[in-house]
């Protein structure tokens, strides 16, 4: 395939990448190339066989594969070019992309790039769980692939650390496949994912949810034999004397997702330590001109629908850039304030519209979230596990007085 002359290259063909490639074509890019390391388009959607996708994007309740199929069909219908089983080895700060596949090595320089590599899972060693290194410990996403795509089960007695959605969904999945899920262990005093999943994945299957607990040790040399679980205090430290031993042969870890930005970093893209992803403006353009980002690579989303929508923004920005349009106008920083962990985008350049995402640091009730003086809304409860999405229009931004260089995004206690 001739790679010279690509207008927009999209790295990663999951829900973000596919949406970006489609939007780039729709926005007028002649040659759009979608690069994917797996053997087919769709990314992680294929292993997410449960439903709950597309409620917002399509107004339908779809499974991961069904959501993927809508995008895959459109990718091919529109004539997006695809490079499968192809890994991007490097992106230079000048947007030179080096790829490798069974055909060999190739380099090319598209007019614009959209990064959509998604995220990876936090590992056992990053948590520092002591013990040996037996077989039987997996991150929940890896286990999901093995169970739902490869047809292999990790074990028969399972403990799951982390009550995020992936962990709870795997609790249900393994129970349905006949395994025994002994408990879901959560370090915080509240569940990490959706209430719907707590009810339909844990209550439905009588799986105990141990809040304010954590795994303090794993046992077993060749194969996992059990774990030690202890209660934690308000600083999330294990309380000595509260340890219990749980027999199990499988431990799944659902303890956090990390945006996968190795390529971004080596391209010179500046990352925001608060998100783990690139610093971007409202077009999702990073600090490297012509390089855009959207989806989980930018910040971890709750809804796949938002991954797709955000990547579409990035694609529009990429097409504008490829056509030679550049953003003029003042630059405003968005800063996270009280009880706000992060805000994306981190800057606004020129005019709106701006689609903004934020997450709070801690759960709070009876609050008002505000974006400077431009927007505010009351919430009965806000949780770190639930992103808040804000749409600011041209008009909203025009209300900003001249000379304002910073807007604080805050979560205040409402009267």
């Amino acid at each position, binding site marked *: 395939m001739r790679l010279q002359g690509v207008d927009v290259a999209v790295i990663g063909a999951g829900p973000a990448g596919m949406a970006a490639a489609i939007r780039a074509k729709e926005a007028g890019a002649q040659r759009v190339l979608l690069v994917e*390391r797996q053997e087919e388009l769709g990314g992680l959607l294929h292993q997410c066989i449960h439903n709950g996708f597309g409620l917002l994007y399509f107004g339908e309740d779809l499974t991961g594969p069904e959501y993927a199929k809508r995008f895959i069909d459109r990718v091919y219908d529109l004539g997006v070019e695809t490079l499968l*089983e192809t*890994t991007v*080895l490097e992106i230079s700060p000048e947007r030179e992309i080096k790829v*490798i*596949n*069974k*055909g*060999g*090595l190739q380099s090319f320089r598209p007019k614009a790039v959209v990064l959509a590599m998604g995220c*990876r*899972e936090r*590992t*056992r*060693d*990053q948590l*520092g769980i*002591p*013990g*040996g*290194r*037996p*077989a*039987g410990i*997996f*991150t929940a*996403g*890896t286990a999901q*692939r*093995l*169970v739902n*795509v*490869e*047809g*292999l*089960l*990790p*074990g*028969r007695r399972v403990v799951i650390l982390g009550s995020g959605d992936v962990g709870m969904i795997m609790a249900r999945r393994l129970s349905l*496949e*006949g*395994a025994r899920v002994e408990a879901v262990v959560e370090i915080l005093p509240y569940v990490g994912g959706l209430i719907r999943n707590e009810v339909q994945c844990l209550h439905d299957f009588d799986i105990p949810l141990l809040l304010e607990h954590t795994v*303090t040790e794993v046992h077993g*040399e*060749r*194969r996992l034999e059990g774990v030690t679980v202890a209660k934690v205090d308000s600083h999330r430290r294990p309380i000595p004397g509260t340890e219990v031993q749980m027999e199990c042969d499988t431990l799944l870890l659902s303890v956090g997702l990390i945006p996968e930005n*190795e390529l971004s*970093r080596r391209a010179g893209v500046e990352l925001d330590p608060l998100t783990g992803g690139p610093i971007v403006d409202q077009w999702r353009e990073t600090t490297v001109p012509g390089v855009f980002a959207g989806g989980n690579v930018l910040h971890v989303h709750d809804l796949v629908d938002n991954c797709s929508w955000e990547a579409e923004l990035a694609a529009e920005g990429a097409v504008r850039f490829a056509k030679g349009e550049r953003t003029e106008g003042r630059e405003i920083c968005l800063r996270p304030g009280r009880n706000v962990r992060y805000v994306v985008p981190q800057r606004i350049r020129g005019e709106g519209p701006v689609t903004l995402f934020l997450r709070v640091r801690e759960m709070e009730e009876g609050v008002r979230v505000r974006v400077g003086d431009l927007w505010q809304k009351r919430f009965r409860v806000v949780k770190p596990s639930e992103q808040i999405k804000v749409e600011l229009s041209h008009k909203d931004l025009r209300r900003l007085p001249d000379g304002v260089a910073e807007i604080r995004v805050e979560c205040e206690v409402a009267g």
Partner: protein
Amino acid sequence: MAWLQTEVLIIGGGVLGAAVARELSRYRVEAALLEREPDLGWGSTKANMSIVCQGADALEFRPEYKRSRLVWESIPMMEPLCRELGVPFKRIGELTLIRNNEERAKYQKLKTRAEKVGFTGLRFVDRDELFAMEPHVSREAVGALYNPDIAVVDPVRLTIALTESARRNGVEVHLETEVLGIERSGEEFLVETNRGEVRCRFIVNAAGVYVDRVARFLNADEFVLYPVKGFIGILDKDLGHLVSHEIHMRPEAPGEMNIVVPSVYGNLFFGVVLRLGRKGDNSTTKEMADTALRNLRKVLPGVSEGDVIHTFAGFMMFRNWELGWHECVVEASRKVPRFVNVSIGYPGVSAAPATAKEVLRLLEGEGLRLQEDPSFEPGLEAPPSFVDLPPEEQQSLIERDPRYGHVVCRCETVTEGEIVEAIRRGANTLDGVKFRTRAGMGRCQGGYCTPRVIKILARELGIPETEVTKKGKGSELLPLRSKELLG
């Protein structure tokens, strides 16, 4: 009829056993090596900091110890050996940080002692030069003692290459073979293994953590070895740029080494927290991890727990643990003829080349006739390390075998071609593939590549995926198929 008949039997496929095997393969001697694990180097060889040194972490340089002599003789041998075998070797140098006059005085004494035995390369660097060489280390340091000779290697790759070279030159190698007992029968030894009986005339006991157990089969042990467990951590490659030399700071407490060192692959290793341990229990504890991290932060203040991508513990068998210093066991047994015990304790990797030669001298002393074999082939075609090749070679490799164009481990850029080659050369477990190719050693710790490596292992070995193990029987990774529990 014995399962295996040979002249010299080497028990243990770690770096020492492998070095002896290769040395023996230079001669017209029938030899065999037995290793109990599914692959080579899985004991202490794989669980250390991969440093090649003069034993200088203790900075004692006592010439009256055989251990010192073996290490010093090995130093000029290691680089040519690695080049010959096509395995990584990187000279990085070492900086021992000085924080006060007391430390300066101590290191001055050591420098003098080192010079007395011929190491004239050490020199002091002042504050400015130190921070020019290492801008990220703690500002507590006012200077350092610089040792330019320190290098790092990949001990497991070295062990595998030594063994492959030995095998190529006639040594038989048997994996998953454990010695269960040894008896004497006239001029022969009868060695009972899980595979059958081995008959041999000479035994080299290089069984690592189990050297004393093997010696005890014949009451040949005249030494007491203490299992000292060392905790080591690995930092994300992103932080690899923080240091370029081995950095050494005097620890606060006994039983703690405070070292940060870049590996040949660009990760940073830190540690080592030492505790007396129980053989076979390689588990890490929170206390060791916290201590190691606390010490690390004294050298690199900016590092945090989240930067640690992996931790592990390995054993060193110390002969005189209670002295805080130890001698090695590289000697012919005084009780049993033709039986040589080999245990360095630390630093085993560094001492391997000269130790192998010493073991052959000891075997000769026990009556082994060594006649050089003119057909000895010293070189070895190492398996290709794709990511290290220049682009033209990468391209021609892919053209020859398209599987080298399929990246399986994204974090370390390991291709299917390399994984298949590793399996062809003997890897038959997930850990075996990991230690030979690095697949699974990156920041995602196998999150992406594990399912794929399992499939490749099943395919290449012709076994069902449910039989693929992490590290040998009993560690099956995916023991059940979908629907199997639904009756």
